[in-house]
C-alpha cells in the first residue's frame, strides 16, 4: 500500500444509511432502509431478485439519487450538502470526487473493452486523482499482481476469462484506494469453476481493513467473510445479524423460507 494511507485503516470507511427511500415511477424499490457498516466491516446483503439490493448499492455512490433519507460516509453526506434545513445536491465535480472513495464492482464486470487490463486499472487514478501516468501504471501492475494477473497486464478484456475479467475489475476499483468497496453479485455471471478465484480475492480484501458491502447469492462465502448478513425483501431489511445467528436461527418467517430455497440441505448447520 502507498505510504499516504498512514492513518490506521480502521478509522476510515464508516457507512451510515438512514431511512433511505427510492421509487421508480409508482413502484417503491427502497422503503426506508437503515443500515450501519462499521469501518473495516464486511456486510453481505442477500435477498430475492428484485428486492432492491442493487438499487441500494447504487445509492451508496450516488449512481442513483435517493428520494428520501440520507447516506453518510465517515460522517460526510454522500451527494448532498446541508444548507439551512435543506439538502442541496452537490455539483458533478464534487460527486465524482466522493466516488473515488467508493469502489464498485459490477455483476457483468463493465471493463472497458478497448483498453488493456493495465489501462483499465490505471485510467481513473490519472484522470480522477491527478496521479502521474508512470505512478498509476506502477501501482496498476502492483494491483494486477495482487489479483494474480500481472502477466496478463497487456491483454484486452475479451482475451481474458470471466474470472480474470472480474479480478481485473476488482484491481480497477482498488486503484483509487477506496475506503469502501461495493460488490454487486460479483460472481453471478461466472461459470461455477471460476467463482472461487474471484471469491478468494474478495476474502483477502476482507482482511485488509477496507469496508466491504457485498451483494451475493453465495451463502457459503457469506458465512465465511461477513461480519453482518443483511436479508432484504421487497425494499426492506427484514433481518440482519451475525452469519451464525442468521443462518442457523433466523427470526423471521420470510428469512427462513428464503434460506430454505437457496441453501442446499448439506449446508444447513
Amino acid at each position, binding site marked *: 500500500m502507498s505510504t499516504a494511507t498512514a492513518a490506521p485503516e480502521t478509522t476510515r470507511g464508516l457507512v451510515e444509511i438512514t431511512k433511505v427511500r427510492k421509487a421508480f415511477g409508482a413502484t417503491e424499490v427502497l422503503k426506508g432502509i437503515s443500515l450501519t457498516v462499521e469501518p473495516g466491516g464486511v456486510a453481505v446483503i442477500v435477498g430475492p431478485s428484485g428486492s432492491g439490493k442493487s438499487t441500494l448499492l447504487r445509492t451508496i455512490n450516488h449512481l442513483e439519487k435517493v428520494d428520501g433519507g440520507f447516506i453518510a460516509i465517515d460522517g460526510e453526506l454522500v451527494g448532498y450538502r446541508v444548507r439551512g434545513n435543506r439538502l442541496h445536491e452537490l455539483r458533478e465535480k464534487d460527486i465524482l470526487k466522493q466516488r473515488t472513495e467508493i469502489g464498485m464492482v459490477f455483476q457483468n464486470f463493465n471493463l*472497458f473493452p478497448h483498453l488493456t487490463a493495465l489501462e483499465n486499472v490505471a485510467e481513473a487514478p490519472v484522470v*480522477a486523482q491527478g496521479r502521474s501516468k508512470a505512478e498509476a501504471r506502477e501501482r496498476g501492475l502492483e494491483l494486477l499482481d495482487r489479483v494474480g494477473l500481472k502477466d496478463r497486464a497487456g491483454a484486452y478484456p475479451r482475451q481474458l476469462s470471466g474470472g480474470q475479467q472480474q479480478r481485473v475489475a476488482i484491481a480497477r476499483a482498488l486503484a483509487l484506494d477506496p475506503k469502501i468497496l461495493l460488490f454487486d453479485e460479483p460472481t453471478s455471471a461466472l461459470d461455477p469453476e471460476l467463482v472461487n478465484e474471484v471469491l478468494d480475492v474478495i476474502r483477502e480484501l476482507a482482511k485488509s481493513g477496507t469496508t466491504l458491502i457485498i451483494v451475493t447469492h453465495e451463502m457459503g462465502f457469506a458465512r465465511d467473510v461477513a461480519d453482518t448478513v443483511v436479508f432484504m425483501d421487497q425494499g426492506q431489511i427484514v433481518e440482519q445479524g451475525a452469519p451464525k445467528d442468521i443462518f442457523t436461527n433466523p427470526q423471521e418467517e420470510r428469512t427462513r423460507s428464503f434460506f430454505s430455497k437457496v441453501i442446499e440441505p448439506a449446508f444447513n448447520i
Partner: protein
Amino acid sequence: MSSAATKVSQSAPEPASAAPGTAEAAAGTAGRVPGPTKPGPRKPATDYADYSLVSAPRPWRWVGTAVVALGLAAVAWSLATNPRWEWDVVGQWFTAQSVVKGLLETLKLTAISGVLGFVLGFILALMRLSASPLLLSVSWTFSWIFRSTPLLVQMLLWYNLGYLYEKISLGIPFTDIRFFEVQTTTLISQFAAAVLGLTLNQAAYSAEIIRGGILSVDQGQLEAAAALGIPAWRRSTRIVLPQAMRAILPTAFNEIIGLVKGTSIVYVLAYSELFYTVQVIYNRTQQVLPLLLVATLWYVVITSVLSVFQYYIERHYSKGAVRTLPLTPLQKARKFFATHAPVRSLR
C-alpha cells in the same frame, strides 16, 4: 489441421474399418473394464509427425477464378483496344494544370465540409441525446429540415441569401446595437455558399450516424466510468467514443466518399472544382467522354486512397473488440509466401 492429427492417432493401429465395438471386445479379452474412455492396448502408432500437410483440393474455386479472370481480361481488352475511349486524350488531360487545380478544389471542399460537418454533427448528436427538451428538439428539427430539402436547393438558397437578406449583422437581438454589418453578397462567395451547403447537409446526416454509434455502446460502460469518478468529458472521449467509432466508421466513410463526389453538385454555383472544370474543357474541345473519364479516374483514385485509410482506421478502433486482429493484406501476402510456396514446391 488439429482434427486430422487426432484422427490419425486414433485409427492408426487398426485398419480403417475397425468399429468401436471391436476395440471394446479386444479390451474385454484383455481383462479390462470396458469403457469408452479407456481404450485397450495398442500397437505403437506410425509416426506421421514429419509428413507434410496437403490441403483438400478445391476445384470449384479454380473454375470460379478462371471465369472471373476471363471476364476481367475481356473488359480490359475492350477498354484498351476500342479507339473511342481516346486514351491519348485522357492521358493528355489527366494531369493538366486546370484539371489538377479543380481536383485540389474538390479535395479542399471535401476536407473542409467533411471536418466541419462531422464536428457539427457530433454536437448535434450530443444535443439530441441531452436531457434538455429544447436542445433535443432543435437538433431534431435541424436534421429534419436539412435531410428533407434537396442539396441543390440548399446550395442555391445560400448563394442567393443576399436576395432574402441584404445585410448580415452581428449584434444583440431585439436591440439596435450592432457590432458589425456586411453586405450579404460580399460575405457569401461561391466558396462560402458551397461550404455552407455541404457542411450543414453533412452535419444533419453525420449527427444521426454518430448518435447511432453512441447508442450502440453499453450503458454499463458509462456507469462504470462514473463510478470511478472519471469526469463527463473524459467519459465521452475516452470510454464511449472509441467504442462508438466501431459503429460510426463504416457509415462515416460511406458519407465522406459520397461527399467527394457530392461536391460535384457545386457546379451549379459555377465553382471550378474537378467536375465543373472538366465540363468547361469538354464544352470547348467537344471531347466529352474522355474528359468525363478523366474526372471519373480521379474520383476512383480518391476513393481508393480513402478506402485504404478506412481499412487501417477501422482496424485501429477494433482493438480489443475482437480476440485477435485479422491480418492486414500485406501481412497475409507475406504469410502466403512464407508458408504456402514451399509446400507447393514439395508436391
